[in-house]
């Protein structure tokens, strides 16, 4: 560190007496004694408990209806609206050889009741459990470049072995994530009418506008050299034929799916209720509903389960009492500790005083 220069002998080597160099910056030296920390504990306790209560309240405000349809039996809707239970779960049927989803899809009809009105915006989710979307190989298996509309006949190697179809054509969209796109079709009926559901506005705007882009020009033409993913029934350009903005890579169901879940039990937004329709302006009213599932998606590999979730939202998102409870518990703990410290402070503070007021010299010899 010594700045040595030839003419240093001329200059005085005395270091400058600045507070920084001499390590004499103004400093605050708190000692973490019971006395000093006490207030912090009380403040935390007093602040956390109300917050927790508020959170719990908001969480309770959220209405949620979850229907697990994993093991739903195949049903057939007869002409008069009567639903016949075929006695066999779709989960088994779709795995049978010779099952052809296009000719004879496995459909479940499930009745459910909403006990209360679902006020406000209602969203429909599908939930999967034990589905490891966060598996290292799975997460990696995608080609973001392709999803940006830059079609390349050689997709990213990350996609392997979901990069090329059996005929050697590259797959679009490639990779395991896209390949395992959730393919059940969920609809809800109320009485004879279906509940109006919108399949757009469910993905993040940033994803829809920036991360996912269709190639230029006609979609079908653009994808003509590409094959559909192995497990798909439709081509990428057939995902939403009604709405070209929601087709191809920019299909929101695909976008949502491509956002891989963090935990093996997750839900993904599927539809939102169209509140502009008559009768749904205030949300969903209580009453009888029917869930119709076009059952294609197999989750048996992980012993997983599938759920349909109807939920309203609050300020804090979905229903989750965890945060509120945690806040209350932590707040209480802090208060208790604060009281304990106060006790220590009063009780032991004196003895500490005595102890430390002893001259260290007398103490040590």
């Amino acid at each position, binding site marked *: 560190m010594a700045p040595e220069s030839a003419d240093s002998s001329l200059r005085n080597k005395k270091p400058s007496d600045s507070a920084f160099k001499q390590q004499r910056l103004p400093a605050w030296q708190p000692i973490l004694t019971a006395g000093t920390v006490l207030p912090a504990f009380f403040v935390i306790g007093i602040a956390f408990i109300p917050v927790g209560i508020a959170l719990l309240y908001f969480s309770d405000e959220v209405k949620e209806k979850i229907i697990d349809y994993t093991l739903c039996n195949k049903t057939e809707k007869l002409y008069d609206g009567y639903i016949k239970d075929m006695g066999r779960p779709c989960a088994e049927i779709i795995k049978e050889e010779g099952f052809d989803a296009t000719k004879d899809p496995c459909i479940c009809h499930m009745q459910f009741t909403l006990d209360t009105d679902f006020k406000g915006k209602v969203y429909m989710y599908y939930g999967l459990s034990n589905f490891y979307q966060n598996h*290292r190989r799975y997460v990696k298996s995608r080609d973001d470049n392709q999803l940006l509309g830059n079609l390349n006949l050689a997709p*990213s190697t990350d996609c392997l072995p979901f990069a090329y179809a059996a005929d050697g054509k590259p797959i679009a969209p490639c990779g395991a994530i896209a390949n395992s796109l959730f393919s059940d079709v969920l609809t809800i009926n109320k009485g004879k009418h279906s509940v109006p559901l919108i399949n757009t506005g469910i993905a993040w705007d940033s994803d829809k506008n920036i991360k996912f882009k269709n190639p230029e020009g006609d979609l079908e033409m653009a994808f003509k050299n590409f094959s559909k993913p192995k497990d798909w029934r439709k081509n990428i350009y057939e995902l939403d034929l009604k709405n070209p903005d929601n087709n191809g890579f920019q299909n929101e169901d695909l976008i949502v799916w491509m956002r891989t879940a963090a935990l093996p039990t997750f839900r993904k937004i599927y539809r939102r209720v169209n509140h502009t329709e008559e009768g749904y302006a205030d949300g969903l009213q209580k009453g009888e509903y029917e869930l119709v599932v076009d059952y294609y998606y197999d989750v048996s590999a992980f012993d997983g389960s599938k759920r349909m979730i109807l939920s309203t939202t609050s300020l804090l998102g979905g229903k989750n009492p965890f945060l509120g409870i945690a806040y209350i518990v932590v707040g209480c703990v802090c208060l208790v500790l604060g009281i304990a410290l106060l006790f220590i402070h009063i009780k*032991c503070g004196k003895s500490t005083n005595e102890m430390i007021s002893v001259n260290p010299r007398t103490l040590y010899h």
Partner: protein
Amino acid sequence: MSNTGEHATSDPSKIEAASSSSTAGSTYTFPEVVRSPDTRGHGRSASHGSGTTFSGGAASTSVVGRPSALKSTRGHQRAFSQGQITDSSGIRPGHSRVGSKTDFILPPGHKETETTSGSGSRTSAKGHSRQASRSESIYTLRRTAPPSFWKRFLSFILRRSPRYEQEERYRIVVPNHTVPPKTPRKEHPNGKRPNNKVRTTKYTLLSFLPRNLLEQFHRVANLYFIFIVLLNWFPAINAFGKEIAMIPVVFVLGVTAVKDLFEDRRRHASDKRINNSTCRIYQSENDRYKKVLWKEVRVGDLIHLSNNEVVPADILLLRSSDPNGLCYIDTGHLDGETNLKQRKVARGFTEKQDGFDPSKFKSVIEVDAPTTKIYRFHGAMLHPSGTRIPVGTDNLLLRECLLKNTDYVEGIVVYAGHETKAMLNNGGPRYKRSSLEKQMNQDVLWCVLILIFLCVIGAIGCKLWLSTYTNLQEPFRPDGYSDSSEAFLAFWTYIIILQIMIPLSLYVTLEMCKIIQVYHIHNNVDLYDPLIDKRTECRALNITEELGQIQYIFSDKTGTLTENRMIFRNCTIAGVDYHHPTLQDESKTKNTLTVLCNAKMVQDMLCQESVTDSSSLIHATRIQEFLLLLAVCNTVVCSHHPHYDLMNASGILEPVPNAFEQENKPETTTTVSPNDKYSRLEESRSVTPSPPLHTSSHFDNRRTPHVPSLSPITSVDSSPTSEAPPKNSRPKILNITALGFLGNKRNMNLTDEQKVKINQSVTPSPHELKPIFEAESPDELALVDTAYIYNCKLLKRTPSEVTVDLPGAGRYDFKILNILQFDSVRKCMSVIIKHPVTKQIILYCKGADTTIIPALAPVEDDSEQKRIICQTQQQLNAYAKQGLRVLLMAKRILTVTEYNEWLRKHKEAELSHDNLEKKLQESYALIEHNLTLLGATGIEDRLQEGVPETLASLISAGIVVWVVTGDKPETAINIAYSAKLFSPQMELLKLMTRSKEAADRTISFYLNEIERQPDGGDPTSSSNLLSSRSQPKAKTRALVIDGKTLTFILDRRSNLTKPFLKLTTYCNSVLCCRATPLQKAYIVKVVKEELKMRTLAIGDGANDVSMIQTADVGIGISGQEGMQAVMAADFSLSRFKYLERLLLVHGHWSYDRLSSMILYFFYKNAAFVFLIFWYQLYCGYSGAVMIDQMYLMLYNLLFTSLPPLAIGVYDQDAPEYLLRENPYLYRRGRLGKAYRSRSFWFTMFDAIYQSLAIFFICQGIYNESDIDIWEFGTVVTTACMFVMQLHAAIETRSWTILHIGSYLVSIGLFYLYSIIYNAYCVNCFGLPSNYWIIQHAMSTANYWLLIPLSCVVALLPRILLRVIKTAVCPDDVTRAIMMHRRALRRGEGFLVSWSRSTSASSIYRTTDNRTKNNILTAVG
């Protein structure tokens, strides 16, 4: 010119014995200070007549110019270079430079001679064993500089090796002026030789990158990370983007490379400075010497050097100003020995000294190929006539030596630049590891184990997970892999993703911390010495924290504790005590050696003039005789002018001022003949860097013509009043002396009238100029100076005669019959002289009281002599109490027959071959008895300012202080008392034995004695030094041991080491006297290794170098003794007192800071890794990482790098004043309380807990939600960031703007980075896109609610523990702070401040028994 005369002046005694190539291990030993002549040749540790070798011995009668004052090298028994550690690599981490494997201590008697070395070197059989032991060279452990990488590479490419090497066995050096100028280098006979340009830099511009990388890959840690990067390239394993994974490694390598580059630039600058020094070489075109830069010197050049110049290359001596062709060099920079060594002109040139003409020198020189052996050189000079004259080591001046005591020399360069012995022996930088770092490395190993454990768990989990699901498809179970092989691959994946468990960046941060710490230490204004304008230098950049953990201090005495300036303080003559007071303004004129005369003594002395009373007349005679003894009985050499050269720096000869020339002509040994074509040079001729102020003033004061402090009351002498400072006569030399003169307050004894007289005085005659005394030891100098002040002037000394100017009697030439050299057994020295007038043969003897008193002639009980002896002894005791060095003066008048009888026997003894030493001693003893006591002197070896206080502080800090000195026990004990190392209450155990058995007996006796005492301390508690409390009434002990006994104890075969060390643990202080440099080192080594203590050695002289290098921390005092110690040291201080601040404040801080920094670092990395690990429970043990890779890589580098730095550099557990007021606080570092193995585990558990808290809070909140993996990762990272900053905040003891800044900046950086990264990076680096994630997360309420929750939950236990600890059992520091605050609140500021006494008078304050000394020694 081509004299071929075989003039065998070769003096075998001067030939170096076995070769030793030890050298100071520092990169550069280029002298920055020209040593003043009065330090030259002082046996440092030598008190008067102590350990210094008066080598000349019998030889003194036989030879040459200045025989005895200079140590010849005879009898040096050097062990040679096998004893060294050669270590070719300077970079290997963890390589201790200290030579543990070298058995580098040899008992003093041990002779290992290299007899095979052929013609030149011969071991002098005459070596006195003591002398041998002293000069057994300092085996600084050398590392040979490896040949330059580039050079090796080149030679590899060019394939030029064997032939070149073959030819290299001998090389021919042709004088360059015989070669026509402008000869192209290729045809030049010396063209192949390298020039004198040196390069010690490791890298060149081209080689920097490859070579630096290569060196860095030697580090295990770096290799580990390279391995991980490579691992990441396996497709089946890879967890990260391949390029991203390289960021940390590249960063670390880059930082280290920049640091190396910086260091290399410093070396480059120093090279440049050295290469651009100047010297004078002969140029045939102009037929004169010309000033050139060192780097332009080439082999074959003729060089002219002046006194005190540094030798620029290895030079074969052809000419010396000395008529006998001798010159003296100080090889201190080379091998650490400060004694002067004689070199002489090549045979055949001796008689040609005056007529030597460079242009006529045509001989060719044949020399060996360069070797590292410093004292081995063979060659021959081939004269044009065909004769061949061998030349050897004693004709060679080595690079980096200092020319001493010689006006000028000329010689021919035989090796230059990197081929010089100095450069070949130049070692690389040292690398020390502090114990904290060692401990840290151990914990890093634990981290490795934890990592492997986690990876194994992960791999097992992976297999179990896979086996639970039978029908998994791609990608979850890739085709072609079984579960087990998948698990195996997962293991490696885990290694990659959990890699930051091993904190690579910790090493970088640590080094940065230490560098900044060093910067602050270097810049501490309180460690700056304004007197010599020097700061504390930290030469080792990486052991600052070791300063805070020192347990043992080994201190040199002379020059370290004391100033090594002998001041004549008291004398007693015939029982009358004369005190010489301190000059009042001594503090200002620190470097004047002058003492004031005692007026009474002057009166007493001169009373013979006004004769009244016979007793006072007798007394006056006694005083005179006493003074005569002081002047005569020594080995001081005087020359009448400083060594000067007639050639100035540019090679121009200056005219001789006439007055000066005449002055010198009749007197000086170095005759300047008028027709000599050289003329006088200016003071500025020297190429050596100008000495620092203090040295130079010191230096010049010595040359001051005698300034009398005494003006005789009655002028009996013709000269005194005319002895004014002849400022006018030698202005150039005296330019600084005016200072000393003015500072010398003489008016005490002078009347105004006399002052006027002085001012009027004319240019003095030559005899009144005070000669320049060159003495072995400062004591002798003090004595001679004192005699001079009393007008008993030593004017000239030759081997056979000594000229003294006696007050009132004029000049006398005393014939010296014999000089009985000092040796440590006799502890005295004598001269036998013949009085020119009375023709009496008188023996003057001076020596230690223990020697002289028994040798006194028996006296009757009531005689006056008896009274004198009694009084003298009383006074001696008083002197000793004051810590003065005491010498007794005695005489004996011999009859001619007595003398002749003795002389005959003595000669017999000298001739005997076996038992020579013993016989000589017997012979000495024969004549040194029946003495008559003349008087005694008390010389003060002044303690340095602040030494007792510093020692008291260090001792109360619980550090064990050993004083290790080469000095004799009596002196050392005196100093120990005055330095408060010993207190009068202490029981002094002395271990001074002459045999192994006796040593054994004494040790066991003491041990038994101590163990019998109930309060004797308990050795099982690994010495009472470590136990935190000691019984207040326990008797404190101090141990004194001498070198001879040490020899037995340190001998491995004796098995005495352990009992000795056990004994020392009972003692509060240990004093080792008469220790050789090697013994010093060995003591340190033994304590370090056997007692497992962290040691610090502090010293100032070359004899401390080995000790300094052996100790864990070496500190050099940059005093008057040259730079060797400083060069070898890790830190250099300018005063001993700074040690207190360095250890108690900076060391304490450094240790404490780095401890918390390291623990924090472990914590933050572990917590982060565990976060990832917990995630594996939720991702099928697949090795998925939820945190974006950029965060992962930048986490250590960017987001969390500042808080550790802030803690590591600027945190203060206690303010400076508190640490100094309460030295016991040092205990924290000494006992290693801040960082122990359990603190590591505690930290680990805390890290696990905190990561659990963070992760599971996040998991709880986001379970079953639609959050995606990257947002989850971002949230977790944010929470983790906040927790870590708050954790750092809890760890921060002292909040400054820097700390707050570092936390805010860290958080800010994180947000700044992530926001920018998430906003602009749609598809970057081939990473999974994190577009808009942080923005999205920040728009949710959960994100903001989660952060405070996780912070509180994660940090609650830690803060709680802290609080409880402070409440229940606060540590020392906290206690001290609280106490201090309480005191402040009560307004009792006085309680905490204890006044620090000023040191000036400390030596006299023996009664001031602040019990501090004893009290806290044993504070654990």
